[in-house]
């Protein structure tokens, strides 16, 4: 039994305020309700009015649009229970219309809807008002009675629709389309009409599946057009394409060549590009990939930052084999495909340029360059930059020239319309060959000019392709213009052979170039020529290694092996695990902490290194690889300040270093500090300043080792700077004249140092402002950072 409670304003609308529902959901519920009512038309129904009367009858119609509930029409009504003051009593006709505001409850019995499932299934409830429990049975035919809405309420909103709280909220696609029942039309096969052209006649077997070009029947749109509309076409296919000279003497050869190139392109592999593979008809296992992976997303497997390198860096496997590498025609006459010098530079150049900018946009370009050490690498970069620029210029010039030629040609063509095109081109060619620049050609122009001369006009990509067809083939396929093709034939024949001759050296050159470009590209450096990862010793067959891993790294098997090798009589016993001590074998009875250089050595070393770095930064000094103990490398530098017998600064001789770190050593150290101020760099680095206090502080610990405490700072300042500077100047080949350049700095530095020293606290050095300042200033002092 279905009970629809339509009291007052109707169940749905009465529940509205409490029922927060999107319009779509509400609509669905309304639809269900409608459906339910539609199904129940023709069922027996009992209507209870608000006055208490009950009418039984067959539900004939119901007006869903009623704005305050549900108007109900009953057929063959009978009164079951009389209401309080029912005016209908006794005068029931064939139909009974109960207005919506009179309907209190509508009970429907014997409703049969749904599928064959026997068990009662709970239906979702619609808030609490419209709960319905429907026994499922085989569905009856929907009643086809004329159901007339008893009362037309104009433009009354549906009850359920009125229930929606907010109709204007954000809706997703799913929200919008979610409720819709997508209906698909049945697709119908297209069949041609009677009058359709014969070419499409399905009965004409021969033509089926043919494209326009290969259609053997004579569909000629021009003649049809002319016949039908009287329009004469001036169309010549050769304006747009190159006719293949199938009867040419070298046709077979060219066909082979074309096939080879095609194979090469297709044989390059899809290179992981699934889309490309798909285009080529290669079946790809795209399971587990979504559309983004397939067609849109950047392939980040391996998270390569230099994805763009791929193309440049990929060495060609074919190059060794001597086969020619295919180069797209538009690139063929670009200079860098021919000029070995440019090739090598472009091969190397291609590498660093695109990466930082493209791949790591979040890193400001500034830091990238800043991190570059001074000196050599930067210089090479600069060179490379210049080379690129040069190269670009050349390309520009050339294309500019091509443009120029074209415009000229056009102008000529327009001025002399009577002259045939071939003649024009011929004339242009002659002009180009004979043309001499009437003034002194700059040296670097020679290169360019030679190239333009060599490159046949036809190969200039900016010019339209030139038709060269044999007369026969032209006649065979063409409906006119034999005059054109025959005249083209003479010139085209010579031209093409010319072209071939030109091309082959070009190809060879490119071939050689690609080898070189490949090697330099893969190693990403011009210096290294190692073509392989392993250098000279290639890994050999690894059958033995397999054994290494299966039988080796196995304490039992190896022990047994060793035991067997010993050939002892004792039975083999696996070592008991409790023999292993919880400590590791050691070669020296010291803690690892003692293996670190002591604090003085560290500071000395780092001072030395700081000097080196700054000097190299300033003077472009050749790089020196400094060991963990930079000292031994600079006996002259550090000790040259007049310290006799450089003390052992080696990190491992700690005890000794402590014992021998005497006064002169400190002197050298301070001397180092003395010239530091050349670099107008704030002392963010702690090793510098705390020298005095530190030495003092550590005095107690050093003392027992027999070292003397350092002399007071001012003394050192007094004598050190000049001596240190002069002493160091020599070994590094510093020009003496350079010295006066920094007097101010020299003077200023120590003072700053002193000030800091008086500040006393080491904490001060953690101020990062200082560091930033240093970066800024080092930038200035280096000068080569834009």
């Amino acid at each position, binding site marked *: 039994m279905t009970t629809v409670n339509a009291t007052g304003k109707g169940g749905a609308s009465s529940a509205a305020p409490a029922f927060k529902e*999107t319009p779509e959901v509400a609509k669905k519920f309304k639809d269900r309700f409608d459906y339910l009512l539609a199904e129940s038309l023709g069922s027996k129904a009992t209507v209870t009015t608000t006055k208490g009367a009950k009418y039984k009858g067959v539900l004939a119609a119901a007006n869903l649009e009623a704005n305050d509930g549900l108007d109900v029409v009953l057929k063959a009504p009978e009164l079951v229970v009389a209401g309080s003051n029912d005016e209908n009593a006794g005068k029931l006709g064939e139909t009974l219309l109960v207005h919506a505001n009179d309907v209190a409850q509508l009970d429907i019995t014997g409703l049969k809807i749904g599928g064959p499932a026997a068990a009662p299934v709970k239906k979702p409830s619609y808030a609490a008002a419209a709960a319905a429990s429907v026994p499922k049975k085989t569905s009856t035919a929907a009643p086809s009675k004329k159901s007339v809405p008893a009362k037309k309420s104009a433009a009354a909103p549906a009850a359920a629709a009125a229930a929606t709280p907010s109709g204007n909220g954000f809706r997703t696609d799913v929200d919008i389309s979610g409720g819709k029942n997508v209906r698909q039309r049945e697709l119908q096969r297209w069949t041609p009409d009677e009058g359709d052209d014969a070419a499409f006649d399905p009965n004409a077997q021969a033509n089926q599946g043919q494209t326009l070009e290969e259609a053997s029947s004579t569909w000629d749109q021009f003649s049809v057009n002319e016949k039908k509309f009287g329009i004469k076409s001036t169309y010549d296919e050769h304006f747009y394409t190159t006719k293949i000279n199938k009867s040419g003497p070298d046709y077979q050869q060219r066909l082979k060549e074309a096939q080879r190139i095609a194979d090469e392109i297709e044989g390059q592999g899809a290179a992981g590009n699934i889309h490309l593979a798909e285009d080529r008809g290669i079946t790809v296992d795209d399971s587990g990939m979504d559309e983004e992976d397939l067609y849109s997303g950047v392939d980040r497997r*391996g998270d390569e930052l230099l994805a763009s390198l791929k193309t440049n860096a990929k060495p060609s496997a074919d190059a060794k084999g001597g086969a020619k590498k295919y180069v797209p025609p538009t690139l063929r006459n670009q200079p860098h495909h021919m000029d070995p010098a440019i090739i090598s530079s472009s091969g190397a150049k291609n590498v660093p340029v695109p990466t930082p900018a493209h791949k790591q946009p979040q890193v400001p370009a500034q830091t990238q360059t800043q991190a570059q050490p*001074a000196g050599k690498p930067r210089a090479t970069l600069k060179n490379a930059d210049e080379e690129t620029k040069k190269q670009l210029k050349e390309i520009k010039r050339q294309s500019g020239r091509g443009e120029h030629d074209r415009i000229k040609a056009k102008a000529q063509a327009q001025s002399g319309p009577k002259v045939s095109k071939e003649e024009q081109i011929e004339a242009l060619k002659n002009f180009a060959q004979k043309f001499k620049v009437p003034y002194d050609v700059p040296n670097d122009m020679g290169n360019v000019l030679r190239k333009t001369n060599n490159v046949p006009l036809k190969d200039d990509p900016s010019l339209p392709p030139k038709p060269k067809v044999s007369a026969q083939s032209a006649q065979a396929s063409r409906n006119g213009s034999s005059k054109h093709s025959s005249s083209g034939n003479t010139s085209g024949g010579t031209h093409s052979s010319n072209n071939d001759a030109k091309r082959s050296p070009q190809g060879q050159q490119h071939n050689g170039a690609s080898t070189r470009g490949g090697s330099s590209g*893969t190693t990403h450096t011009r210096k290294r020529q190692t073509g392989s*990862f392993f250098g000279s010793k290639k890994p050999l067959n690894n059958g033995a290694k397999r054994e290494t891993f299966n039988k080796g790294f196995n304490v039992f098997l190896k022990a047994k092996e060793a035991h067997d090798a010993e050939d002892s009589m004792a039975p083999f016993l696996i070592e008991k695990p409790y023999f292993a001590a919880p400590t590791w074998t050691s070669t020296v009875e010291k803690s690892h902490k003692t293996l670190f250089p002591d604090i003085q050595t560290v500071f000395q070393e780092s001072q030395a290194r700081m000097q080196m770095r700054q000097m190299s930064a300033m003077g472009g000094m050749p790089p020196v690889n400094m060991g963990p103990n930079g000292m031994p490398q600079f006996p002259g530098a550090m000790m040259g300040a007049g310290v006799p017998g450089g003390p052992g600064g080696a990190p491992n001789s700690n005890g000794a270093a402590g014992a021998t770190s005497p006064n002169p050593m400190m002197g050298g150290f301070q001397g180092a500090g003395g010239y530091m101020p050349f670099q107008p760099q704030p002392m963010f680095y702690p090793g510098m300043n705390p020298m005095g206090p530190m030495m003092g502080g550590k005095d107690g610990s050093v003392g027992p080792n027999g070292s003397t405490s350092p002399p007071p700072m001012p003394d050192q300042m007094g004598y050190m700077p000049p001596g240190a500077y002069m002493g160091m100047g020599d070994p590094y080949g510093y020009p003496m004249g350079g010295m006066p350049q920094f007097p101010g700095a020299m003077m200023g530095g120590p003072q700053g140092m002193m000030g800091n020293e008086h500040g006393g606290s080491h904490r001060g050095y953690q101020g990062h402002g200082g560091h930033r300042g240093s970066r800024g200033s080092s930038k200035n002092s280096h000068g080569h950072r834009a």
Partner: protein
Amino acid sequence: MPVRSLEQFLFEHALVGSLPIDTLRNATLGIDAAHYVSRLLSGRKEQFLDALGGCPAMLLMYLESDLRVFRECGIVPVFVFEDAENSESDADASLAQRHKAWNAWTNTLSSADSYIDQPPTATEPFRAGTTSPALHPSRYMADMLRVLARHGVTALVAPFRACSQLAYMRSVNAVDAVYGPTDCLLLAPIDRFIIGMEFPNRDFRYVDRTRLLRELDCSMAELVDIAMATGNAFQPRTLPPLQIYPPYKLCDVAVEMALASGTNFYAYQLANEVDPVTAGYVDAYQRGVSALKYTPVMLQSGRVDVFTNDYAAVDAAARARHAGKNAKGNAAAPPVTPASPLQIPNDVHEFVAQRLPNEYYFYRAIGLASGQLLDAIASGVYHEREPLDGGAQESYRALVKQSVQEFKNKELNLLTQPINRYFQMKQVKQQVWYAPDDTTALLNRTTPSIFDSLNHLVVKCSDDDKEFSISEFVGVLAAAQDNLAQSFIVDKVIFPDSVPAAEKLNNAFDLLATGMLRALVQLEFFDYDFDKRTLKPTNWGLTLLKFNALGISPEHQEKMLLLLVLLKSGTLALSEEFKPSVLSVLSEHTLRTYPQEAQQILVLSRLLTLFQVEHKAHNHHGPIDKKTLVFREHLDFVRANMNDMLEAVVVASLTTNEFDKLKYDNLEWQQRIVAHMPFKLALPSTAMAMMWEFFLQKYLHNGNARDDAMALVSSQFNAHQTIADVDAQFDQSREFLQQCQLLLRDLADSRLVKNSEATLCDDAVKFATAALAKE
């Protein structure tokens, strides 16, 4: 963990070369598995992995295809794993990101008040960092090891650092090339290494150290100094003054500081050694450098010993070369004098870990024993890591507490008994993530020792090729159910050398079945008393023995056993709400309108966390369900402990020579024993549970329309692409649920769970079956 931001630095400065993979033909390639994984799971891949749990399915898919490429190229890969503590890169960052993502999700969910049956979608990724995705090795190691073993590919778990192990292998030419993280730069024997492989393009990226040093104008010592300051595998913290810079620029800044202005970071730490915090930095620096120099590795002999990495020698060699070049005039360049070998200090245990027997390292190397327990013995701390959901629930914490008694004390006893007495005395603590200072002491001393009390239990079968599984094991026990004592108690222990080989454990099945029985005795599935010669199943054991009789399919029995152990722990009933409660992914409307059904869905989703949906890849972007994940983590905790327990029992059995350890080579160990050990693989993700939840919810709201609900699931989970046959998966999981139903009914009959639970489960399965039935 690689050197922070160095990889990016290398790429930015074009210090990375590229060659085709064919170059590596015939090479044996040592692969740092963690690095390999980080390359595969980079960026946007599997961002919701931590919200779903489980092993990344994509990883295994890629692994298979990469192995194919290796085969085609004639490359022999050797995977080296690292399972030691702190081997998760940037654990803090990943935790922070996870918390952030959970907060975002909770907000999304609680503000979605108009949500009825279209679940809201999570937006915040759960994995931190696009550069080095953090994933603890335990998440993928067992799964990967199993795949590798199946393919017969060599895989090895390093005793400490994988890159040190690779450096050793390179130094003895066991491998020809190394594919690893930037840490490899710091290891002297690796002069160049592969940093990335692009399998689709068939080329690889490599870094040449000589070139790097030359182009940067940098010495090896300086490089190490920089790496120690930025943080690397040996010293994971970022030290001052670099801490204030964004992580991705660390190397830029450090290189600038070191090379342009000559900063020495060690000197910096020393100069600032003023309070305990900053003094800690000096210590960290020193430990890092020492660990880099003296990390123990497994030698070819199978012994584990300190491998010295004399990186300073690289500089010496470079200087010698330099000198040789300068002295071109001289006919003979000065020969490169081999530096005297590095001295090994006597306190390597201070900065690495205490030494365990070689045998234990071997078990770890083949994947038989997982790292955590062994690390706990060596380091004295058993870390309980935070579960994926944050582990705020009382039941989870109760489980963690309980595990001390139920599992860890016993395991420690089993593992320390056979080894040096030092470890038997050593105090080991359990440290939990939510209260790191409040540690629990683990007791590893019991008399008699656990092994002594168990070693008369032996399960043997004559079939050498029989593969171990819970189902087979149950079958063997159930067949002898009437006289378990006679069948499985031996009068004489079998470990002494005097026992003839035939009486020992002869094959993998014997070993694992014996181990399993002993483990179950400890978990009180069986009552065992050697003096009285009794071995009887408890009520829980009786249910276990009925597994086959109940028709529980073999592939599900391992999971069902986990469920039994969880229920047995009494910390959480199947339908019990969490405390504090977790927001359900079901909509408010569902919970309010269909309270009964919602309860049923809860039970179903919990059971389904044990069902592995067969998907090819699961790059899931959509709704997630924390509540289900919390339950999954409960189960996963049980699984990890069961795994530890079984491992401890088996290792104890092996160390006492109950089994012929010379029988198998490494691959056979892995294929025959390790690959059949239960509880090793990560539990399934919550994917299937969620699919069911949303299916049923939609079904409820959508007028019981099954197809609509199925369509919703398909679109939310991209199921048409990732799952071969969604319907079949639903059918299989329904069967699984029915088996769960039988199990629960049986448990209720034995009064092990409340009857209401079983009834609820009955109703739930009925509901699910009805919903799935085609109309």
